[in-house]
């Protein structure tokens, strides 16, 4: 009781001192706070300049050129109103790209499940944990540009995957995976899952280290088996990680570019085209900068809508 009173007294004294100091500052040095404000603005100015100057300028500029018919170089672009957006609605490749992105988005669930599985396995008593962690995380840090030729080789008709299939008597499954429009997308999704499972694993592993061991112990005493512990304890307790991974996964899906561009170039026959590769082709290769901008605007709106809806769906703000 005495301690509480003493603390309260000190707090009041401290507040009073701050209040007096504030009044004194107002009276004797009228420009002090303003100077502090200016200093504050200066501190944030570089970040504000970068964000406004690059990101927001780019957004506004993109909106503007999305209503032009322009090659990006000509001094005389032609305003076409919403024609680029109308064309987009009628563009079969655009819709196909969206379908492919949806497939990539579904694969996020696979990489999350794998990440959680590996995290649970390594969280239990497994030998050579560090080695496994490195092996799992390695694909995350490998540059897609480096890995693209490797995967073209692996999935080639005479590649390692088919060699392995033939070696185990599964000749019938051997297939030119990337050359066939019916399998190329799945091959890319496999690469994507391989690349990002390590990321899911690391976040889940970090989440699991925060779970109170006594909870698991209590569940075990109550007779819970492995599946019960996972489903009733670990999955609910890592919900925050799941939400984060889902949001990052969906945003990552929308931005997917490097793997399709480098491994298949969107082919064969557009079977692996995604929105980012398509807008690159339109804006950069084919010089349809206005149409490319319209595609970019759609990409941006999709990112915003999906992120906001996910945050709301999982009530991320109220979780804390």
């Amino acid at each position, binding site marked *: 009781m005495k301690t509480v009173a003493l603390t309260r007294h000190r707090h009041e004294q401290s507040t009073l001192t701050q209040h007096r100091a504030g009044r004194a500052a107002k009276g004797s040095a009228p420009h002090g706070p303003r100077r502090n404000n200016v200093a504050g603005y200066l501190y944030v100015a570089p970040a504000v300049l970068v964000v406004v100057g*690059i*990101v927001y*300028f*780019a*957004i506004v*500029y*993109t909106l503007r*050129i999305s209503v*032009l018919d322009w*090659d*990006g*170089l000509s*001094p*005389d*672009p*032609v*305003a076409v109103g919403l024609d680029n957006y109308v064309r987009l609605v009628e563009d079969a490749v655009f819709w196909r790209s969206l379908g492919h992105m949806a497939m990539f988005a579904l694969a996020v669930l696979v990489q999350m499940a794998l990440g959680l599985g590996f995290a649970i396995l390594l969280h239990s008593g497994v030998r050579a944990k560090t080695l496994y962690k490195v092996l799992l995380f390695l694909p995350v840090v490998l540059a897609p540009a480096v890995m693209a*030729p490797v995967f*073209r*080789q692996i*999935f*080639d*008709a*005479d*590649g390692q995957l088919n060699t392995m299939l033939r070696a185990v008597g599964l000749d019938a499954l051997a297939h*030119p*995976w*990337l*050359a*066939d*429009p019916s399998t*190329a997308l799945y091959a890319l999704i496999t690469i994507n899952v391989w690349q990002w499972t390590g990321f899911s694993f690391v976040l889940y592993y970090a989440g699991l280290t925060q779970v109170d061991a006594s909870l698991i112990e209590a569940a075990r005493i109550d007779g819970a088996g492995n599946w019960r512990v996972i489903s009733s304890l670990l999955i609910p307790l890592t919900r925050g990680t799941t939400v984060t991974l889902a949001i990052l996964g969906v945003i990552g899906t929308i*931005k997917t*570019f490097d793997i399709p561009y480098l491994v*298949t*170039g969107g*082919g*064969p*026959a*557009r*079977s692996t085209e995604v929105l*980012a590769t398509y*807008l*690159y*082709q339109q*804006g*950069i*290769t*084919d*010089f349809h*900068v206005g149409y*490319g*901008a319209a*595609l*970019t*605007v759609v*990409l*941006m709106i999709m990112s915003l809508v999906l992120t906001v809806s996910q945050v709301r769906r999982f009530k991320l703000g109220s979780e804390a």
Partner: protein
Amino acid sequence: MSITGSRWRRTRACQAALVGLTLAALAACGSGSGTSNASSSDALAVPQPGSAEAKTVKGTVNWWGWSPGVSVAPLYVKAFNEAYPNIKVNFKFYDYNQYSPALRTGVGSPSGPDVFDLEPGGIARQYGRFGTDLTPLAQKVLGSDWKDKLSPLGADAFTQDGKLKALSVGSGGAGTLVINKTLFDRWGLKPPTTLDEWVSTCKAIKAKGKTCFVHGAKDAWVNRDLIQAISNSIAPGKFAKAVQGQAKWTDPDLVQALSVYRSLFGNGIMQPGAAGITQYNDAQNKFMAQDAAMIMQGTWELGNYKAQAQTAGIKSAGVSSPKPFVEQLVPLPDVAGKGNKPYLFGDPDFGLTVNARSKNQRAANIFVAWYTLTKQGQQVVADQYTQVPSLKGITPATQGLVDPSVQVTSLRNLGTQVQNATEHRQVAYPDLMTAIGDAASALASGSKTPQAAAQDLQTASDGVSR
């Protein structure tokens, strides 16, 4: 409605074409227009290479390009500096796929290039406007009959609205296959001259455990080369006419060309999975590693006639103890049995443009003139073999060939053919170029019939503004 006000022009100063968050990352701000006239008489004063005056001219030339590559460019710079020791040349290399985006942002910028590479076709069409008219330079160095002294492909490919926007360094011709003659000789095979022979040759090669014809059908350009070559064996020149809108893509000859192209994926000539690999470096590596006996390449492959260059190429393909083998360029077989004489179609590999905004016009002109119009510069080009020099009468040195008994004749014959070629290889219309790539990809994967692919091409062609 055209936007031409001063406000727009100010905005245009940011040439970067910030297409969005994605494309914005590729962009940077530049300014101004690229149309200033730089052809003053001072800027055109090109002293004779190696002369006393040449040694006194000072300047710096910032040169951007994807060609001749980081390993070869220093050879040119060194040779140039022997003639003009006080002009510093900085070559900024870009990967081919990154070159156009980089040039888009850099060409109008104060820190942009003084000289830049220009490729015939779409790139020349888009960026030629930023270059000076090089006609006076060519006239000054070669005289009023300058056109007669250069390969016709070069001047034709880079002339826009009567102005010469780039000077061709050298040209490459396509329509040929490259065979591994060492393997062919070992197995007693001859280069195929008909489709049937090609099929039977492939059977024989496969029986030896090797891939017959390796093709990187993921890359649109090599499919386009193959379709154009097939088309020329059926109806010479019709493909080029269709590109220019002077023939229909649905013409029976062109549909037949697409059919023949498609058949290559099912008759045992094309390796399985061709549509999943690139020509560079997937397919080329297989050929260099001698896992495949044939590949579609043009005269740029002549560089590998040299033992030293080829050894490096084999090593790059992952062979630990590279041994040179004999490569030979041969015509595409007469795939439709029409009996038409095969010929090369081609274009300048690249040309050099002087940026109209350059503040180093004289040094830039001297460099471009030395490289493209003088015997000294063009001899360096010829000796690399990868391009046939633009200036006529330059003969490549023939030292260091893997097998001179075969390759000297081949080298000279092909050089002459390229210098006299008139049919263009590049497509100047990006939409049509993309459509040809899409059609080839759809045919390769069997997802479209030749008739449907031809119709798609015609639709794309109809939408092109020529």
